[in-house]
């Protein structure tokens, strides 16, 4: 049996990482991975709402065919929405918050391998964020978050270089986080924590870290070349000067496609923790889920050309990329099957984290399947650069990743804060998010199929009804996100004190680390004596630990 802890003293009576020290210096100069995770949590949430604000502007504009903003302004709105959401929210979201907080505890370590680099990564992220804010305040960028040349290099009159610098800087934050996780998982596991006993949360973040480390440098060099070209106009991406704009797209998407796997793998990692717990059953096919994370990480690097199907890429390269894009769906599907199989004949309960997990599984499946549609070249030709694509990626990113983020925040809220959130409000929030999300984005599949192009500030009148539905959904979705902010903030201060393991979950973080954890995570050096998700109680080592 694994070691479980006795009922603790109340939060505030016992020293934990939150009350171990006070004052702004103890937070801004901390090297405690848990405090750094909270620093990230607040910054990432702030950027989420900022990115959401741009979306609000867009959806208001799209209520009528002519819109209310100028086209230039609209271009800036969707660009900043994309940049903020991708680089300053989605990429860091789960890894830098939940990953930072939980990975050392889950593997039985006192901290990450490089705590000071961890803090540095947050500062770098903040500097990047400030530069991005500065770019916004100076008037924003209108190239789309994809910065396609030669518009971005030659013709745009907006603050392209500032935005590129902001992203370049934030990329280092991502790289350092990934580097830290990789070394930590290799070198800092406690006795008994073999690779085959690692929580799938850790496997997922390990795979994510590989992508971060291997892919991010390429966007860095791409943005560097973009900036240099904008300054010197040598012509590297400019066809009038002998350059190839498609080269920019190759280099850009070499990172940006794996980036979407950086964004989704941590979400899947969270779901892999929630589903076994609320099914009271070990995950089905642990090895398959673990290796599927690695599979997605590797395969994700050889599919980027599916963004270039209509860009002038050769037919033969396109065929290879199309085929590989189908192949990369397989490991994702494996995960969905395994989560479902975990629930089968399990004892399923419907607490808030599990509601978000259900939402994830359903919405990610829809998003993922539509990705297969887009991978099919013949179909892609019709729907590329339409709202179909937008609906696809919002289903996986928002219906998938953001729901996983919400689920994870709720699941580990007691561990992080030592308090319980109000379960009824949690369920209400989840339901509103689910309804709002589908109302926002399902119409967009139809819009895209009917031919509504993306990034258009105005549109033909026959699309208005669907756009109005989508905007209405967006307002509901916004409410759905605000509700948890309110009750989670309340619960942190005033919520009931949490028991050691409110969910009766397996895992070192629940069973061997106090709630909330002390600064070095464990009062007694932990030992792992059983397989992960050992809800049935079998398989534990006897006489050890």
């Amino acid at each position, binding site marked *: 049996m694994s070691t479980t802890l006795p009922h603790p003293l109340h939060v505030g009576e016992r020293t934990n990482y939150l009350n171990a*020290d006070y004052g702004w210096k*103890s937070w801004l100069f901390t090297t405690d991975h848990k405090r750094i995770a909270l620093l990230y949590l607040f910054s990432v949430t702030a950027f989420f709402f900022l990115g959401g604000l741009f979306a609000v502007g867009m959806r208001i504009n799209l209520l009528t065919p002519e819109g209310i903003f100028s086209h230039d302004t609209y271009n800036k709105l969707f660009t900043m929405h994309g940049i903020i959401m991708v680089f300053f929210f989605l990429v860091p979201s789960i890894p830098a918050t939940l990953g930072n907080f939980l990975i050392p505890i889950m593997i039985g370590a006192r901290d990450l391998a490089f*705590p000071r680099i961890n803090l540095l990564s947050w500062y770098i992220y903040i500097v990047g964020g400030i530069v991005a804010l500065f770019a916004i305040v100076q008037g924003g960028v209108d190239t789309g978050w994809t910065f396609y040349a030669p518009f971005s290099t030659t013709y745009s009159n907006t603050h392209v270089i500032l935005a590129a610098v902001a992203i370049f800087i934030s990329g280092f934050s991502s790289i350092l986080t990934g580097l830290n996780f990789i070394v930590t998982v290799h070198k*800092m596991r406690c006795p008994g924590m073999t690779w085959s006993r690692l929580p799938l949360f850790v496997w997922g973040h390990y795979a994510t870290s590989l992508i971060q480390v291997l892919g991010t440098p390429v966007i860095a060099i791409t943005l560097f070349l973009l900036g240099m070209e904008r*300054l010197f*106009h040598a012509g*590297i991406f400019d066809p009038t000067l002998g350059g190839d704009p498609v080269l920019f797209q190759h280099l850009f998407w070499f990172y940006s496609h794996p980036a979407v796997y950086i964004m989704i793998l941590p979400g899947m990692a969270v779901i892999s923790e929630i589903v076994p717990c609320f099914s009271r059953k070990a995950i089905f096919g642990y090895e398959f889920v673990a290796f599927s994370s690695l599979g997605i990480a590797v395969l994700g690097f050889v599919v980027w050309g599916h963004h270039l199907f209509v860009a002038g890429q050769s037919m033969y390269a396109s065929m290879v990329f199309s085929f590989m894009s189908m192949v990369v769906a397989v490991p994702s599907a494996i995960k969905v099957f395994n989560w479902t199989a975990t629930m089968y004949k399990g004892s399923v309960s419907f607490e808030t984290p599990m509601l978000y997990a259900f939402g994830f599984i359903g919405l990610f499946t829809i998003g993922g399947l539509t990705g297969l549609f887009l991978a099919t070249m013949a179909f892609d030709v019709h729907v590329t650069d339409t709202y179909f694509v937008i609906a696809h990626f919002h289903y996986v990113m928002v219906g998938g990743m953001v729901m996983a983020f919400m689920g994870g925040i709720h699941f580990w809220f007691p561990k992080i804060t030592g308090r319980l959130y109000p379960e009824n409000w949690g369920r209400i929030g989840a339901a509103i998010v689910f309804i709002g999300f589908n109302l926002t984005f399902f119409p967009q599949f139809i819009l895209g199929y009917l031919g509504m192009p993306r990034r258009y500030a105005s549109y033909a009148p026959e699309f208005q009804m669907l756009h109005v539905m989508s905007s209405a959904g967006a307002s509901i979705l916004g409410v759905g996100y605000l509700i948890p902010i309110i009750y989670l903030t309340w619960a942190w201060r005033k919520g009931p004190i949490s028991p050691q393991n409110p969910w009766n979950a397996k895992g070192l973080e629940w069973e061997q680390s106090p709630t909330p954890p002390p600064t*070095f995570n464990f009062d007694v050096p932990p030992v792992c004596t059983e397989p992960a998700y050992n809800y049935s109680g079998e398989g534990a080592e006897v006489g050890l630990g």
Partner: protein
Amino acid sequence: MADIETHPAAHAQGLKHHFDDSAQQLESSTLGMWVFLLTEIMFFGGMFGGYTVYRNMYPGAFASTSQFMNLAIGSINTGVLICSSFTMVLAVRAAQLGKKKSTITFLVLTLILGSVFLTLKYVEYYEKWKDHHIPGPGFRYAEPQYFHEAQILFFLYFAMTGLHALHMIVGAGLLTTLIVMASRNRFSAEWYTPVEMIGLYWHFVDIVWIFLFPLLYLIGHTSSWGG
């Protein structure tokens, strides 16, 4: 930073509290540095990719521009960097043996050689500037049919060698830090990790040049020495 940590272990030199022992810490540092070098491979790789595409696309322009590469400086610089890798590895070895003076000597030699490289690079760049081969409004090219392509190729030349030089400058800064640390007796045969790690970085920067040199200076270049 005011947490009371509770293990009273006798601390080996340089051992940080979250590690169990020095071996774990050293292995972690080494792996961490290699992961970082991995990112550098991909960083330079992106540029090598762009360069390869354009060489493939514009073989005539490429042959034309290669005559303007200063083979003499390029070759000498290659030799200089190889020497600096040699002195660097000897510095690490001296640190491993706990020999403070030798460590500092070899680090200083490495730094000097690195500075020689950067100086010669500066001379090369200055030459290019005089020839109006710096991309931008001042760019001029002798063979007008290759004007645009040559500008792209020179752009890539400056981007690749410039970023490499930037990494050398950072390396020089790191070496200086090591020299200061060594003179303050921070290293011993038990703990000299920073020397080893920065050595890995320095060798990597050397390897980038080992590939840059033939790609930029040697291929398509069967004419005489000098630029």
